[in-house]
């Protein structure tokens, strides 16, 4: 019997919806893409609506609606946390009572008021936070059997789990409990280094190569006890999240030489070294966890999810250590992916459907292109209604040649093609593209399009068959979740780069040439690689192919299609707005090409930069 299941994650960060029919992922999207509010935690009404439309169903057709975690078990943790905090726990309790007791416990009422139904199951089903993560990692993976590792801040009580997936079954065998958390440890350093918790972790990871891990031993000696099996216990004397509303406390400040860095203030050598240190500790923890998982489960493969699984530097390290034959990481590894995991878990554990293998031994994520697409007729309607000048090039090869030539001239291209990505990374469906060979690409894209001075290089997209020519990476990295070294024979100015690691001002060195693809080469000669497979994204693949035919390089700079603080664009309207507000040269909306030089003058009454809170 056919089963259609809606999964929902909400109320923490990045709320999302996903729709699964008989184990096939039909649609998945984050609410922020529709609401245009970054990391939108609100109930994902628009994302749910999109999922139902994509599946061509009415809400009454849903066999079940599943929420990704258990607010009841979360409440148990909150109450006990406050009891442990004593008097200072009152502030947390006041906040949590309103948000959890007042709102989150009643997810069923949100569903009823949004959909008017609870599906054929007649009640909102609930999964467990890390079960949802585990399901999001194992079920779409290409493996019949795999060890499962989930690591994040916290979900109910668990902060990490280790388990085994086999066929349609998932068994989570071990867990580490709150407050002892790899994710919260990393977030504490994110906060202390002046970045936003829940989103700035990626920046901290990008900062790490500038520093040296001089605090690594201090962290291991004072902040936590790390066991040989990768399990940890934090020393809560240094953290603030039990009894205050910030991550660290004065003892932490004292240990690391002063108060936290103020957001947006200059980054100093201390932050660089702290970033390098916590990155080194995190990698050590994850490597030990992976070895323990391998020993305990005996599985040859491993899957990862949870927010910490977005740490692509650590992922690359785990892969290179060859603890497992191969690893697979859920592209929406954070809480958004919990919506997908909950729907998949219900498919196999509630309705007991059989699990089918992926096509040709590949995964079942469809490249993570699970969001809305816009047909050429819709694009045409949009540009004509707005009287936007355009050029239509229906022939994919000719169009790709034209775009490739534009990129090779050093121009920057906004690219909207096919279904929107699910997860935090732009993978060529909603991307800003540039030429990786040009030394000025990075500065141009940062200052004229992203409106930021970034210490992080952009990521490369690469033809899957060419990845070995550019990067020391075996196999695929379709979701930009593995960092790999740029091949030694492509590196340049190696001795100079080593000296530059100790400079105080990172922005002096970021734009310097380190390889023949400088725009995507980090200061440590690493790159966040995306391999592009023809069957996942044919248009993007063809563009890469034509760029290679023209330049000899099957690589492009791929940055998310947004400005700082803005969610990645979803619709042609969003894309056009971002295009006109920035200095992109060309906007590709499927087969329609919009040249900046042909566009009318762009006037806005208000400063749009105030629209987005800086991330």
């Amino acid at each position: 019997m056919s089963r259609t299941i809606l999964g929902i994650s909400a109320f923490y960060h990045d709320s999302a919806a996903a729709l699964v029919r008989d184990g096939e992922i039909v649609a998945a999207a984050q609410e922020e893409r529709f609401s245009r509010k970054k990391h939108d935690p609100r109930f994902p009404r628009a994302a749910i609506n999109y999922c139902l439309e994509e599946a061509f169903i009415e809400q009454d057709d849903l066999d079940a609606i599943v929420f990704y975690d258990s607010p009841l078990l979360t409440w148990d943790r909150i109450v006990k946390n406050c009891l442990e905090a004593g008097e200072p726990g009152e502030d947390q309790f006041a906040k949590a009572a309103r948000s959890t007791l007042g709102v989150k416990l009643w997810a069923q009422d949100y569903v009823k008021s949004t959909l008017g139904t609870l599906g054929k199951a007649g009640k909102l089903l609930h999964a467990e936070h890390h079960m949802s993560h585990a399901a999001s990692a194992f079920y779409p993976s290409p493996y019949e059997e795999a060890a499962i590792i989930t690591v994040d801040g916290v979900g109910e009580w668990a902060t990490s789990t280790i388990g085994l997936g086999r066929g349609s079954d998932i068994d989570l065998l071990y867990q580490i409990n709150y407050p002892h958390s790899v994710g919260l440890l990393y977030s504490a350093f994110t906060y202390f280094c002046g970045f936003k918790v829940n989103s700035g972790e990626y920046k901290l990871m990008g900062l790490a190569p500038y520093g040296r891990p001089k605090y690594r031993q201090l962290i291991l000696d004072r902040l936590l006890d790390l066991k040989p099996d990768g399990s940890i216990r934090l020393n809560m004397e240094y953290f603030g999240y039990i009894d205050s509303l910030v991550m660290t406390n004065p003892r932490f400040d004292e240990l690391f030489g002063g108060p936290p860095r103020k957001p947006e203030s200059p980054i100093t050598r201390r932050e660089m070294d702290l970033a390098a240190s916590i990155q080194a500790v995190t990698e050590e923890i994850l490597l030990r966890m992976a070895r323990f998982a391998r020993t305990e489960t005996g599985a040859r493969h491993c899957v990862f999810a949870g927010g910490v699984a977005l740490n692509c530097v650590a992922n690359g390290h785990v892969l290179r250590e060859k603890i497992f034959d191969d690893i697979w990481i859920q592209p929406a590894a954070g809480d958004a992916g919990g919506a997908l995991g909950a729907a998949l878990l219900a498919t196999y554990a509630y309705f007991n459907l059989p699990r089918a293998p992926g096509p040709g031994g590949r995964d079942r994520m469809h490249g993570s292109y699970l969001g809305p697409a816009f047909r050429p007729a819709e694009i045409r309607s949009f540009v004509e209604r707005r009287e936007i000048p355009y050029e239509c090039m229906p022939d994919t090869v000719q169009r790709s040649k034209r775009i490739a030539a534009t990129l090779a001239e050093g121009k920057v291209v906004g690219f909207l093609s096919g279904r929107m990505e699910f997860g935090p990374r732009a993978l060529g469906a909603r991307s800003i593209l540039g030429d990786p060979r040009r030394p000025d690409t990075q500065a141009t894209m940062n200052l004229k399009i992203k409106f930021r001075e970034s210490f992080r290089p952009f990521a490369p997209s690469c033809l899957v068959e060419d990845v070995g020519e550019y990067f020391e990476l075996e196999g695929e990295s379709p979701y930009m979740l593995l960092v790999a070294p740029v091949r030694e024979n492509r590196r340049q100015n190696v001795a100079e780069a080593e000296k530059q690691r100790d400079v105080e001002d990172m922005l002096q060195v970021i734009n310097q040439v380190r390889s023949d693809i400088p725009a995507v080469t980090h200061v440590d000669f690493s790159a966040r690689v995306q391999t592009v497979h023809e069957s996942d994204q044919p248009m993007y693949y063809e563009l890469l192919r034509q760029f290679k035919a023209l330049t000899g390089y099957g690589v492009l700079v791929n940055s998310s299609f947004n400005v700082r603080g803005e969610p990645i664009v979803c619709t042609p309207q969003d894309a056009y707005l971002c295009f006109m507000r920035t200095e992109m040269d060309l906007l590709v909306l499927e087969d329609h090409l919009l040249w900046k030089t042909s566009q009318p003058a762009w006037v806005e009454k208000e400063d749009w930069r105030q629209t987005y809170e800086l991330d």
Partner: protein
Amino acid sequence: MNSTSQDEKERLAREFYAARLLPLSRAASASGKHYFPLGPEPGLETYYVRRARTRWTAADFESQSVATPEQLAPALAALWQTTGNPELAALAPDFAALAARVYDVNTEAEGVTPFMYVMF
């Protein structure tokens, strides 16, 4: 369910904390009881906890569902009896009453704070 203002909800929560939870917290503290470990125990071989429930079953999907504040009291009481916290189980009806007073599904969730991991 009710139209209590946000300020009023905050006041109710703070009063509840002071009257119901703080005495429990003080009693626990006085007796040296902790609700979870706060630091390393070098003598332990591992900090992993072996899970009693390794698999999420059809019954588990349904058991976590709470539809009304009336259903909340028995659900919390059962949970806290299971976890060995009779002092909290005894407060379950009070928590349910507080939930009824602060219930507000029409309020938009608060934004994400840059200072704290979103955990409640």
